[in-house]
């Protein structure tokens, strides 16, 4: 019989971290975006509406019809929609971002880096124990342990930081977009990585599959009954 769910279990299970690779490279030390899954309504509340009449479109034809609709828009509307689509990812990051953990370094290693390697449906800590932060960095990220431990210690000493604002998330640039995609996939809003935008530059047209998936699946339990 499954165990009873606890809030601690949910929080642990639904946290994710994204290594901001470009920013880490620029700064010479690891920069980690810590986030949680988001709910569908959180996504929908920041996503632009799907095109008129799209609620009747079949899932398989959504991308084609969206493209037709998008191409028929005036140039200004297309640009606005493109920007909206790009901003969605930053808004998702802002909504989902969590402050750095305040915990002993070893625990940070487990929680910050261990979950990064979590396989689908499996928590890493339950499969292969995380021995040390250094092991992970050396094996999986090629980072020096000193830099990462400094980052973890800084999270300790500086205390919790505020959640990211939209403007701050936008300043993350492509790191923010990648984090947004990772959050969307982890949240089940995009079912597979292939559903995510193929490129952030193509945000307007590629945000359609995500929007379609969300709308199609939205209120699934209730709408199945209607």
């Amino acid at each position, binding site marked *: 019989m499954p165990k009873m769910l606890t809030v601690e279990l949910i929080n642990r299970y639904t946290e994710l971290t994204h290594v901001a690779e470009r920013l880490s490279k620029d700064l010479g030390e690891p920069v980690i975006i810590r986030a949680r899954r988001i709910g569908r309504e959180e996504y929908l509340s920041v996503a632009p509406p799907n*095109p008129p009449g799209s609620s009747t479109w079949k899932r398989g034809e959504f991308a084609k019809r969206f493209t037709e609709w998008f191409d028929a828009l005036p140039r200004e509307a297309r640009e606005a929609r493109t920007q909206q689509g790009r901003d969605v990812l930053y808004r998702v990051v802002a909504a989902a971002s969590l402050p750095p953990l305040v915990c002993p370094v070893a625990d940070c290693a487990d929680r910050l880096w261990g979950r990064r390697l979590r396989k689908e449906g499996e928590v890493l800590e339950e499969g292969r124990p995380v021995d040390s932060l250094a092991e992970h960095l050396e094996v999986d990220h090629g980072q020096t342990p000193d830099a990462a431990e400094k980052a973890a210690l800084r999270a300790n000493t500086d205390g919790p930081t505020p959640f990211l604002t939209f403007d701050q998330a936008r300043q993350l640039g492509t790191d923010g977009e990648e984090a947004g995609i990772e959050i969307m996939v982890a949240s089940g809003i995009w079912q597979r990585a292939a559903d995510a935008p193929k490129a952030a530059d193509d945000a307007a047209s590629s945000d359609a599959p995500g929007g379609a998936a969300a709308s199609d699946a*939205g*209120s699934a339990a209730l709408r199945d009954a209607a």
Partner: protein
Amino acid sequence: MPPDRDGAVGLPDFLISIPEPASQVRARDLPTGAFFAGFPDDLPLTDCFEAAEWERQHAIVVNLERWVSLMLTRAIVEPVLTLEVVQRLGPSRDVLARAYLETIGWVPPSPDSPDMPPVVEAPARRKRYPPLELTWRTATPGKNLHGILKQLATRTRRLPTELWALPISAWLFTLKCFSDPKDPVGLPDDDLMRLIGMEV
């Protein structure tokens, strides 16, 4: 028909399994008013939805999604869930919502979801329920839901307040007992969602 306080009219607490993280939650048969608190008047797949502007359609979907999450914060008693925690559940939220709605009788068991774990009665030990906001007792429901409640009160000759305090499973059962597709003002039991979403 006194409001149920001991599970005699409504369902006992029940356990719902979710796939990830693999675990169970304990749910209660909410009072009808608490179940419907914040229920939007406009719903997807209704005539008014189809006639609405696309931005409005989007807002309708968002409102319904939000109601589902908020309803779960009231229905799940162990663990006590905040809205953020429900949102973190991702796809498991839908499993939870579907199982809850099936158990209370809102929707029939879906043949499309054979993998849905069975809902079972919870062990009988009493749990102290997290408190509900009192506004559900006094807030007037939306226009469409108000119409259904008024119609049901007329047919059962009960005060709307009595019906509003019924466990939601008992309320739905009563509603279905009075449904009659041949009656022009009947309540079709296979389409409650559509019925409540329509102007009456």
